């Protein structure tokens, strides 16, 4: 891999041990993926924020970087709670303290404490063709597919290294030729809103490549499908014919064809259950989703035996304050900074309804609480919580 003189110097430690170490991560990553060089990035999104996953060792590491600053706009993934809901989310004092210590360590490096998996709505908006280094697989797949920005699926540490160094190795999704379709996917049944996340889970589990999909949906539908696809497998980009920005040049002569059947997706749907919690916002809700929810529940009353929790970016929630007011009046809770997967929600509630295939995939795992989860479309879920 080609390194500039400056990069050579940095790698040799001329700018300090921290810079040398972080650059080494990017260079070695580049070597294993045959990158030709490092390229500048426009922004970064960092995961590895939850105290539950990185623990005291993570805090120790972040503090060891003291003095290092991010060199590009950098945003942060969700944490385990919204400070306004510590009781509901059963957060104890020590956990709260340690989690905030992590957030502070990132803030000291110049990271914006956005605590969202949807930075692309307001907090950190990439442009078409821009090179970025993002962690958080649902944001990666959104940025590549819907926006046409270019990022590999970065890890917690490599995204942080890129944020500080301001570069990423040039391979994979950064290269035009790697962004072409490998599979052509058609849907062999009548598509309904609840099918998007299920199709996503299925595609992610059967292919590893760049699917080109023939179906019709809005950006919220595609967000749910993409997040599910990225969670059940390792896909970082898809095309949707007629919709996503690079679809016209995506198809090649040789692609594998797959038709998704109703039977393929059935196993992901989950049995009809009496839920204790309806969770919407994995990935975090868009402004349009918040408005749709508010419109639907306006003036109605929530059933007392079912909780309705909506998760969103603080920025989205602040911009949609009227929708939030209506949802609260209905009896729902609108939480920022966290989500149904990284909070204790899956440990508190054992029967959950959601419109998210990604949330269902995780919440069903023992490590996240092993809840029974049914995936339905947003309106079906909302109808079920009305008194």
């Amino acid at each position, binding site marked *: 891999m080609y390194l500039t003189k400056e990069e050579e110097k940095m790698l040799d430690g001329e700018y300090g041990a921290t810079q040398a170490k972080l650059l080494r*991560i990017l260079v*070695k990553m580049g070597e*294993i993926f045959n990158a030709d060089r490092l390229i500048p990035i426009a922004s970064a999104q960092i995961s*590895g924020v939850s105290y539950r*996953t990185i623990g005291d060792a993570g805090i120790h590491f972040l503090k060891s970087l003291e003095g290092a600053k991010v060199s590009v706009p950098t945003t942060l993934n969700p944490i385990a709670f919204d400070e306004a809901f510590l009781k509901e989310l059963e957060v104890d004092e020590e956990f709260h303290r340690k989690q905030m210590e992590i957030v502070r360590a990132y803030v000291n490096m110049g990271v914006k404490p956005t605590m969202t998996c949807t930075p692309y709505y307001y907090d950190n908006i990439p442009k078409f063709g821009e090179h970025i280094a993002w962690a958080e697989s649902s944001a990666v797949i959104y940025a590549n597919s819907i926006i046409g920005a270019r990022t590999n699926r970065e*890890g917690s540490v490599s995204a942080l290294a890129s944020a500080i160094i301001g570069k990423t190795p040039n391979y994979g999704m950064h290269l035009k030729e790697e962004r072409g379709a490998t599979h052509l996917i058609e849907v062999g049944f009548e598509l309904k809103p609840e099918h998007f996340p299920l199709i996503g889970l299925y595609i992610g589990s059967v292919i590893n490549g760049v699917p080109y999909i023939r179906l019709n949906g809005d950006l919220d539908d595609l967000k749910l499908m993409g997040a599910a696809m990225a969670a059940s497998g390792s896909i970082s980009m898809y095309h949707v014919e007629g919709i996503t920005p690079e679809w016209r040049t995506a198809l090649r002569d040789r692609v594998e064809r797959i038709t998704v059947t109703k039977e393929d997706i059935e196993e992901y749907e989950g049995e009809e259950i009496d839920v204790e919690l309806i969770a919407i916002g994995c990935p975090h809700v868009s402004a349009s989703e918040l408005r749709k929810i508010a419109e639907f529940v306006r003036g109605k009353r929530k059933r007392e035996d079912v909780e309705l929790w909506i998760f969103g970016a603080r920025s989205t929630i602040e911009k949609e304050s009227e929708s939030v007011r209506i949802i609260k009046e209905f009896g729902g809770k609108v939480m920022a900074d966290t989500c149904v997967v990284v909070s204790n929600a899956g440990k508190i509630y054992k029967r959950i309804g959601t419109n998210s295939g990604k949330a269902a995939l995780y919440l069903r795992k023992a490590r996240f609480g092993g809840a029974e989860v049914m995936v339905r479309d947003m309106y079906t879920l909302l109808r079920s919580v009305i008194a």
Partner: protein
Amino acid sequence: MIKEGRVIYPGKARGVVVKCDKPVVILGDIDPKRGTVEGCGAIKDRIFVFPRGAGSTVGSYTLYALKFHGTAPRGMIVEEAEPIVVAGAIIAEIPTVDGVSIEDIPNGAEVEIHDGKVVIL
């Protein structure tokens, strides 16, 4: 026997091999407090040999946690480094080599890593 691999994190380390034959899910299979790997045993002060890392990228922090808890291996040999092991080995400063076949590195053997070289003693 001497094998030539690629340096992921430089340094010299000598010790007894603890080998896993299957990819290791770093966040999940490794218990950093105990310094053990599910199905493979204790790796503290050993040379940890495995084909490749797998699972969540947060696993890099698990390798750092081994260092933090004083349970880290002296060195690591992998057939194919992937992002979790690359970032983890570097932040934990564990001498690590990749690009060598591990088939003929027996469990329990005494080996030395010296930058990209693996010497089976």
